């Protein structure tokens, strides 16, 4: 089907020389069907000028095709990919009035760029270092690690770090997206029968993103994910058993390149992990503990 049919002759091609040139372009552009292409090629064979035009066009297309293309930098790709992810969180907030200011969520649209990086294998996860993931693990059955040798505690910390790193690389750091603890807690309860307090501390700068289940040493345990400014904060934790040693004073650790804070409160043993600055992590822990004390009912296991 010739796209430009004026005064067709036997071969169906235009008589006007300028229109005929358009047919040459169309041929070069692959816009002609087989019949029209054949007709144009016959015309070209009979008309050196058309053939020359064709040769110039092919040369020009080659020259343009060889132009360097702008490269899509990892950073830019991450910024764009973040649009979908952040909107994801923002929209969830919008339907959940219990959450913090939507404005703050909106403001994070651009700043959230490192999170999206996990969509792409080529992206170095270290570039996501701006994300703080604070993960509090409540390990019901992990008493072996918590109560015995020190290196037991170390291996637990490593497992927490590995889970944290995996979450940064996964499509989403949470299994249940919600900034509402009344959604997160029942979900965790339904899944594994235990849930920690999940205060949304958006007013303090730590917005609850949601929760997920971590499996550490055969034991599923609840994890919460918070966001601090443009950083992700993830927090993992475990219900304490009787023999678990109390650790009321937060203990600063590190594992797998991340900073951790470990402490116990009542029924839970918490592990907070992030690649944030130590002061930010400590501040989160202090505020989290204060929030639980202010509302202890929210912290009961199960």
């Amino acid at each position, binding site marked *: 089907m010739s*796209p*430009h049919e004026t005064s067709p002759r036997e071969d169906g091609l235009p008589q006007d*020389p*300028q229109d005929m*040139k*358009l047919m040459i*372009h*169309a041929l070069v*552009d692959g*816009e002609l069907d087989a019949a029209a292409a054949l007709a144009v090629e016959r015309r070209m064979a009979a008309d*050196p*000028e058309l*053939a*020359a*035009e064709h*040769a*110039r*066009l*092919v*040369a*020009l*297309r*080659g*020259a*343009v*095709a*060889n*132009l*360097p*293309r*702008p*490269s*899509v930098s990892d950073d*830019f*790709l991450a*910024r*764009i*990919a973040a*649009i*979908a*992810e952040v*909107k*994801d969180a923002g*929209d*969830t907030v919008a*339907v*959940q009035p219990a959450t913090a200011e939507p404005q703050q969520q909106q403001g994070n*649209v651009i700043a959230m760029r490192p999170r999206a990086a996990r*969509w792409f294998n080529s992206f170095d996860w270290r570039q996501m270092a701006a994300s703080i993931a604070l993960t509090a693990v409540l390990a019901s059955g992990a008493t072996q690690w918590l109560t015995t040798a020190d290196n037991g505690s170390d291996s637990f910390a490593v497992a927490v770090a590995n889970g944290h790193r995996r979450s940064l690389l996964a499509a*989403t750091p949470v*299994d*249940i*997206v*919600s900034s509402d603890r009344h*959604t997160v807690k*029942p*979900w965790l309860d*339904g899944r594994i029968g235990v849930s920690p307090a999940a205060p949304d501390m958006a007013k303090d700068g730590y917005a609850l993103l949601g929760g997920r289940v971590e499996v550490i040493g055969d034991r599923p345990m609840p994890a919460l994910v918070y966001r601090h400014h443009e950083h992700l904060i993830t927090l993992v934790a475990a219900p304490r058993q009787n023999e678990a040693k109390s650790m009321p004073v937060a203990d600063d650790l590190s594992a797998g390149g991340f900073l951790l804070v470990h402490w116990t409160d009542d029924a839970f043993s918490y592990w907070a992990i992030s690649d944030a600055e130590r002061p930010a992590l400590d501040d989160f822990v202090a505020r989290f503990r204060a929030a639980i004390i202010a509302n202890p009912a929210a912290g009961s296991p199960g």
Partner: protein
Amino acid sequence: MAGAPDGGTVLSEKMLATRFAEVVLPHLGDALSLARWLTVNQADAEDVVQEACLKAYAGIAGFAGGNPRAWLLTIVRNASYTWMARNRPRSVVAVGDLADLDDVSPPPDSDADSPEAALIAKANSAAVEAAIARLPQAFRETVVLRDINGLSYREIAAMLGVPQGTVMSRLARARGLLMTELGGRHEPA
């Protein structure tokens, strides 16, 4: 997720994000190319494409199949002109002269010597880029959409909102100017 009140919302949000990843992200290079040629600035191109992608995400639910590249590039084109109207009001004036451009008589026929094609083929990238950058806006966007972004006449016509014949004549005019410049021919009087 069973029974979670917002389970459906989460799922559809995830679907939208997945679609965004499938429809938009693979074509960012094309989007940057187009924005770079329309705004003639690499740094601006990223800003423009980012704005376009925000719009694309907002409208991703309305993407009804077809060529995702053409869909995205349509948004990028609009974003480019919006951006230029905001940041460089003076440079968009040329758009008002479209009718004139389309009426311009075609370039005189050249003598059919083949060395010209060789000259064009050997033109270095800087010369080709400079020649494209000097094209009138309407010609430039048409030739970029066709030869750099690889859209079909039909897709370009739909994007620009002009008949396919207009796309063809603009393309021929644009290429004629490029060939004249790169082929070392004398500028037609």
